[in-house]
């Protein structure tokens, strides 16, 4: 392990500890003295806190101190009353997370039902999804993707940590196209639409 300046370590520790929000590595390096090795500092802290009650976790390209997830059951007194996600909202969130970027129509294709008005709105309100560019198809529909806040909420360092994502990919199930295009001969403009469209 590289000899990390203890002052840099302590300072980074203080900065990260003081913040409730994840701090990006870029922001952290701006706040450390010139020439500080941010990557090494973060690795050191990660190791130092690995077995403690508070861990340093990575969230996308940011880091944050969070209470250890294995203490979850013992921390229940802190539990706040949180609105439960509806089945539709959870499934929609999962589709956006696993298939991103994904259009509204693709979400409907996969779930086989029309997406009700409030569903995207709810996820958007929670700060978990955001519009991300447009798909280069007729109508140029907006595509949706997840946010850093989503990763933070579910304790994921990145999208590749999504549970089961490798299995889904290996099974070819991370394809948001209508099934007949995935499986069939790739015919376009088919009329057997009831299979393929969420809302016939």
């Amino acid at each position, binding site marked *: 392990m590289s000899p990390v300046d203890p002052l840099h370590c302590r300072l980074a520790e203080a900065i990260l500890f003081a913040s409730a929000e994840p701090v990006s590595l870029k922001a952290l390096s701006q706040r450390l003295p010139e020439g500080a090795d941010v990557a090494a500092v973060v690795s050191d802290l990660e190791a130092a806190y690995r077995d403690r009650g508070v861990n340093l976790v990575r969230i996308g390209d940011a880091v944050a101190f969070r209470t250890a997830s294995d203490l*979850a059951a013992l921390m229940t007194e802190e539990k706040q009353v949180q609105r439960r996600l509806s089945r539709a909202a959870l499934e929609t969130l999962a589709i956006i997370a696993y298939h991103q970027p994904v259009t509204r129509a693709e979400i409907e294709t996969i*779930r*086989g039902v029309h997406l009700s008005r409030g569903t995207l709105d709810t996820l958007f309100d929670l700060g978990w999804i955001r519009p991300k560019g447009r798909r280069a198809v007729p109508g140029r529909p907006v595509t949706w993707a997840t946010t850093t806040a989503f990763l933070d909420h579910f304790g994921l360092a990145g999208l590749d940590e*999504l549970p089961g994502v490798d299995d889904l990919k290996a099974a070819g199930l991370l394809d948001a196209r209508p*099934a007949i295009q995935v499986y069939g001969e790739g015919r376009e403009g088919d009329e*057997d639409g009831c*299979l393929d469209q969420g809302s016939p």
Partner: protein
Amino acid sequence: MSTSGATPAPLPAETGAAFVVDVEGFEGPLDLLLALARQQKVDLKQVSILALADQYLAFVGEARRASLDLAAEYLVMAAWLAFLKSRLLLPEPPAPDEPSGETLASALAFQLQRLEALRAVADRLAARPRLGREVFARGAPEAVATTTVAVVRAELSDLMRAYAAHLVRQTPQQLRIAPSDLDTVAAALERLERLLGATPGWAELRAFLPPGTVEGLQQGRLKARATLAATFAASLELVRDGRLRLSQSRPFGPIHLAPAPPAAGDAG
């Protein structure tokens, strides 16, 4: 994939399993199909699409027998499955530009697998320790510093909301003018009375519409439809007053009108 030649799975009614016909519990035909497929108690990769089609059709048939109001999408799926079933059972190959029954069946199986897999990972996602429930952030973020840097907090969602609020607020202004250019019954009455004097015998109702209305109707324009409705209502008023006769030879056929003959006394 055993799409043909498989022994059909027992129909829901025969399984004894309490598969009550209750479409309320399902989120659309695909959800229902997935539930039925699970009843076959095999890996979805081995699910018999033919048996599944039979199960679905039986389910829908049961629902209709019980006079349940099935949403249209369920019936569309039923029709499609009936089509698929015939494709799977018919020996002759389909036209070259059409997918075979096996391909359609595979596509349906894929769709069910994809949905089931998605639901499984969604549950795993939801079961993770979550921030603010099982995992916690710093409870007392510290303001150690003495200098103040104002950081403006604004997300894309705030921006979109602001613009949406603006749009919503703008619209009522347009609302005030909109209804005024729709034809009223009073105006139609006046127009009919004026034109009626110059009409010797029977004439089609459409002849009494203002210029441009017929074209507007063909394009489905609301203004034209309002004019038509107003004109028809006005003609009924004139009939009530005994000043007009209306005739329509068949349902949805053209409506003709003519001035009523002068009252032939109150014989009767």
